[in-house]
């Protein structure tokens, strides 16, 4: 690798990081320094205080945390059961059912916003956190991933457990689930980041502070019409992305590997 290339690689890295670095600059300095880069500018936390006061961030945080936990919990249970069925039970219509599951990989719930909104209205789930999460709980990706993992587990382990008197559920819980732990971790990371960042469907199905997740709250807060200045918007944006960003910095390798698995499928 030539020196020119090394410098180019670093410059691109700086360019790639610059929007985020700028957000940090604007958020931690008084508004009058938002567009002038004076290294001696005083540091301040006032922007964070203002942002925290302008939008109901604690409530949005709570909503997002409830949302991602609820979705992940339901996904883990539903996808484990379905993945186990596809991997180890040779039931009638299995291949057709599996093909129908895979359809969801192509048609994500956000494409069907019109009909799904109508369904939520019928169920009385408009403007509820359950309403945001429900369409995502049976995840084709999760079912697919767990089916693949369960299929690699040797049948002998299962037979040994059966001989010891384990029930089907016992086999699933004591043999399959523990051995699939890396898959669960990868899936959980992807699911949590996806739903922490998801916007379109939550925007449509919620209409009050009590249910809106962070992304929707941030969109309302950051809209140019709201008249809030850049420093405060930067602070608000950082507040909203901080938990995920910190988690990413701590577990970089797992994140990248999980995202890759998610993409390759």
């Amino acid at each position: 690798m030539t020196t020119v290339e090394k410098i180019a690689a670093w410059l691109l890295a700086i360019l790639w990081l610059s929007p985020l670095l700028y957000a940090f600059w604007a958020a931690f300095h008084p508004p009058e320094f938002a567009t002038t880069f004076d290294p001696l500018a005083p540091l301040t936390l006032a922007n964070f205080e203002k942002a925290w006061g302008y939008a109901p961030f604690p409530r949005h945080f709570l909503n997002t945390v409830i949302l991602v936990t609820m979705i992940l919990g339901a996904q883990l249970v539903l996808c484990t059961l379905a993945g186990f069925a596809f991997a180890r039970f040779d039931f009638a219509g299995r291949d057709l059912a599996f093909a129908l599951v895979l359809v969801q990989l192509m048609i994500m719930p956000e494409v069907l916003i019109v009909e799904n909104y109508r369904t939520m209205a019928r169920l009385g789930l408009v403007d509820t956190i359950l309403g945001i999460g429900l369409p995502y709980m049976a995840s084709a990706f999760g079912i697919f991933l767990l089916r693949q993992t369960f299929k690699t587990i040797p049948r002998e382990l299962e037979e040994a457990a059966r001989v010891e008197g384990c029930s089907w559920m016992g086999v699933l819980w004591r043999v399959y689930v523990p051995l699939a732990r890396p898959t669960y971790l990868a899936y959980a990371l992807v699911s949590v980041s996806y739903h922490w960042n998801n916007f379109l469907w939550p925007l449509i199905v919620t209409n009050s502070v009590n249910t809106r997740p962070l992304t929707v709250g941030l969109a309302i807060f950051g809209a140019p019409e709201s008249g809030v200045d850049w420093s405060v918007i930067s602070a608000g944006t950082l507040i909203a992305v901080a938990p995920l960003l910190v988690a990413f910095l701590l577990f970089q390798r797992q994140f990248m590997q999980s995202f890759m698995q998610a993409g390759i499928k």
Partner: protein
Amino acid sequence: MRHVYGWLLLTPAAILLVAFTHYPAVATLADSFFSAGTAVRPSRFVGLDNYAALAADPVFWQVLRNNFWFALGTIPTSIALALLMALWVNARLPARALVRLSYFTPTVLPMIAVANLWLYFYTPQIGLLDKVAGLFGAPSHNWLGNPDTVMGCVIAMTIWKEAGFFMIFYLAALQSLPPELEEAARIEGASRSYFFWRVTFPLLMPTTLFVLVNATINSFKLVDHLFILTKGGPDNASNLLLYYIYQVAFSFFDTAYAATLTVILLALLAAFAVLQFQLIERRVHYR
């Protein structure tokens, strides 16, 4: 017994999948043949009237064109950048982990937050882009308010957001290439560019095709940023198909027409899925 167990295990997931994927897909298709019902006028069967309206709707054709330009603007550049990034962080580079981290970070940020940050760059006069242009004596420019530049702004931001994500697939592919190839090439005295174009690039072809299809599908699903940056404007210059569906359904309340537009989107996604499936089946390899 295995039939009963199999179906019992599958039932909870199957109910939700049918309710929120299969049923709405079929209902969307059905709705596209009916008029939008109101309190006084119930919806009635109108055959292909909605499709005729669609063919005559200049905005529909514009968003389709926009989607095409958006895809063409984002995909080749982000794939090329992704490959370059992967080659760089796969080589011996000081502070390599930090560089890789910088490239990948945009991937974990929500599109809404990203749009908030980029909106500042594009703001006339006080925005960073205008400031830099001002240093060279260029006049102030309303980047997002001008139909000629707005798409370019959206494309630039999307490339920034996506390139690092595609990079990790190239990185994984590069790491799986046998190191003997490079040694052999070095012994033979092949130049680096010769080695790249004759050996590495062809071997990465499956990854490139895979990323290409995924990027294309993404370009039809990615609309969050429009809510912050442009709202599809000015004059629909940056509007995309999914955002237009949202507008028709939830701002104009024309659910029948929104269903018709959704059918077009579903047809496009299905076509790409078939393409993807065929690529996986064929396993493009040059060995």
